[in-house]
């Protein structure tokens, strides 16, 4: 995991695109953290700093028609899949202009227009429903693929077992992306199972599994491209175990006392942004300036998103009672005849 990122297969545009992706996720999260501390955001946030290479690498290898499922930690997945920064930021503010109209919030970011169902904050909940997404694509013969993000902690849930087994036997077009960041909340994975490498647990389902450097966006991209091709070609699901690390706490207010400082430092040395930048610049030093420009552009996009979110209206209280049912079906507690 200490090897330099191999950019030999990427042209400069593509490399810059990936770098932009990483920077967008990082800056967004860093800013969200500040905004949260200032008290501008309701509820809680689970942040993605450190894991950016996973979401960006995976989503770069997907086709626009593909879908993803996400988790309680969805900001990175959302941005990488194409949810606008405005829509995501406004959603964190609980504003009417948010990608879910303020109803979903941080833990349920999503946008059907870009192929992301609302993130599921129930651990392994996405593993359960992604089978159906794959099944739909298979029945429709659409060639689409679903990528399912989840943490290593989710692999101990029954939903993981039932979902992966069913998808395997049905050979559904799914790419499972397990972000093994070593901890589920405060609990180290090796305390929760005797088999601490997720790839070693997947033989139970008879599907291919591959362990990937999750701090290397190019490696993630390539592993996903391969798995996507297999899935789309009828070869069934693949599990990618991305070895990664969250730099931040589990959620706001986590002092991370269950981790060693040395461990954190070692992983920070693998920062996916730095590693990609180093590889690109060492191939072509003139890229340095262009990558700086990317960063500046991202700053501007972010600034715009924060302004947009701040200035957006709160949802109207009446909105609380819409969207429960699909038709013009009244919320039962609102009286008016039908219960």
């Amino acid at each position, binding site marked *: 995991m200490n090897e330099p990122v191999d950019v030999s297969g990427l042209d400069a545009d593509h490399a810059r695109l990936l770098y932009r992706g990483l920077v967008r996720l990082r800056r967004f999260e860093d800013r969200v953290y500040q905004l949260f501390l200032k008290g501008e955001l309701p509820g809680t946030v689970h942040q993605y700093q450190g894991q950016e290479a996973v979401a960006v690498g995976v989503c770069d290898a997907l086709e626009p028609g593909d*879908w993803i499922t996400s988790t309680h930690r969805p900001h990175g997945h959302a941005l990488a899949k194409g949810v606008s920064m405005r829509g995501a930021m406004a959603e964190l503010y609980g504003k009417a202009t*948010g*990608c*879910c*109209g*303020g*109803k*979903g919030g941080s833990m*349920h970011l*999503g*946008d*059907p227009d870009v192929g992301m*169902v*609302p993130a*599921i904050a*129930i651990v392994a*909940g996405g*593993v*359960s*429903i*992604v*089978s*159906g*997404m*794959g*099944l*739909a*694509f298979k*029945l*429709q013969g659409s060639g689409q693929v*679903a990528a399912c993000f989840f943490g290593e902690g989710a692999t101990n849930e*029954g*939903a993981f077992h*039932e*979902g992966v*087994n*069913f998808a395997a*036997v*049905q050979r559904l077009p799914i790419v499972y992306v397990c972000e093994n960041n070593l901890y589920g909340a405060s609990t180290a994975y090796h305390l929760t199972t005797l088999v601490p490498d997720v790839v070693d647990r997947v033989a139970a389902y008879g599907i291919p599994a591959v362990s990937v450097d999750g701090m290397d966006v190019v490696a993630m991209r390539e592993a996903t491209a391969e798995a996507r091709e297999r899935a789309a070609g009828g070869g069934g699901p693949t599990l990618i175990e991305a070895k990664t690390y969250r730099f931040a706490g589990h959620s706001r207010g986590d002092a991370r006392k269950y981790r060693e400082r040395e461990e954190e430092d070692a992983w920070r040395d693998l920062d996916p942004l730095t590693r990609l930048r180093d590889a690109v610049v060492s191939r072509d030093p003139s890229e340095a300036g262009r990558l700086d420009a990317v960063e500046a552009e991202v700053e501007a996009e972010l600034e715009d998103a924060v302004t947009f979110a701040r200035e957006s209206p709160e949802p109207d209280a009446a909105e609380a009672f*819409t*969207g*429960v*049912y*699909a*038709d013009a*079906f009244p*919320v*039962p507690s609102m009286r008016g*005849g*039908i*219960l």
Partner: protein
Amino acid sequence: MTGDQVGERRLSIGAAIREAIIEEMQRDERVFLIGEDIGIPGGFGGAFGVYLGLPEIFGRDRIIDTPISEKAIAGAAVGAAMMGMRPIPDLQYSDFVFECMDEIVNQAAKMRYMSGGRIRVPLVLRLPVGASNRGAQHGQSPESYFIHVPGLKVVCPSDAYHAKGIMKAAIRDDDPVLVFEHKLLYGSKGRESAGGLDLTAHVPEEEYVVPLGQAVVKRAGTDVTIVATHLVLYRCLAAAEILAEEGIECEVIDPLSLLPLDVETIYASVDRTGRLVIAHEDTLTGGWGAELAARVVGERFDSLRAPIVRIAGHDVPLPVAPALEEAVIPSIDRIADQVRALVAARR
């Protein structure tokens, strides 16, 4: 209502539901079946044989046999529904729904709302209910849990005509609908299993749809309104016959769907009779009868001339011994006695 003329086509509930599914699968290729033991050649056609013959018509691709994995079944249904399909997942016995509550309560019911109304989850979950000497884990009637889940719709058909029509409505509905069917009413085993009931009803050849949220007045009456579902509905009708001979006229209403619930029809009846009895096999405390009683006392207080009476399964897990099971489920006698007492107390 169901026009029981001689010579007309009569079907059991099981056959009527099969017909509804066949017609909707022919009409809409997004509809598919998924569950355990539903399509295996030489197998059961589902735990109650409802799917027998369907694989031959539609092929195994649209009748998907699964591992024993209720979460996978329900999860797959939710995911496929979100991607534009119209799955009909099957759980064999409704008792097993507790294995996939998260998929139903936290995902199916909430996805549309969480997405800001942008995603639909049209699915129809079939859940057989009812005691039949199989004990605590194979005889529950868990429909009441689900009226407490915003985002779900809950249907309880009790005759073949309405079962077919409302099943078709459910399949065309854009929301997740849970259909609770009473296993002793399927009619496949004939009259005995349901205590001598004729379990067939007229089902016209022509296509029809019965919308959710319309109660059915099964019997008109002036003295007391009885609202009941499933097997207990028939026991209420039998009790009403007995009581009629004593001069007590019961109006018996089949709500057909519990959410949406057609309170207007019930209110209108209570406005006339002034007395309400609610009867179900599901256990009393926290059952759907409580919600109906609360609605009526909240909105029709001035119509009520007497306390609202609930007659329900007793608050115990189901025992196997017939002597015990009968003591738990509302009997014709218990219904008749309670109605008699209610009317007598407030003549």
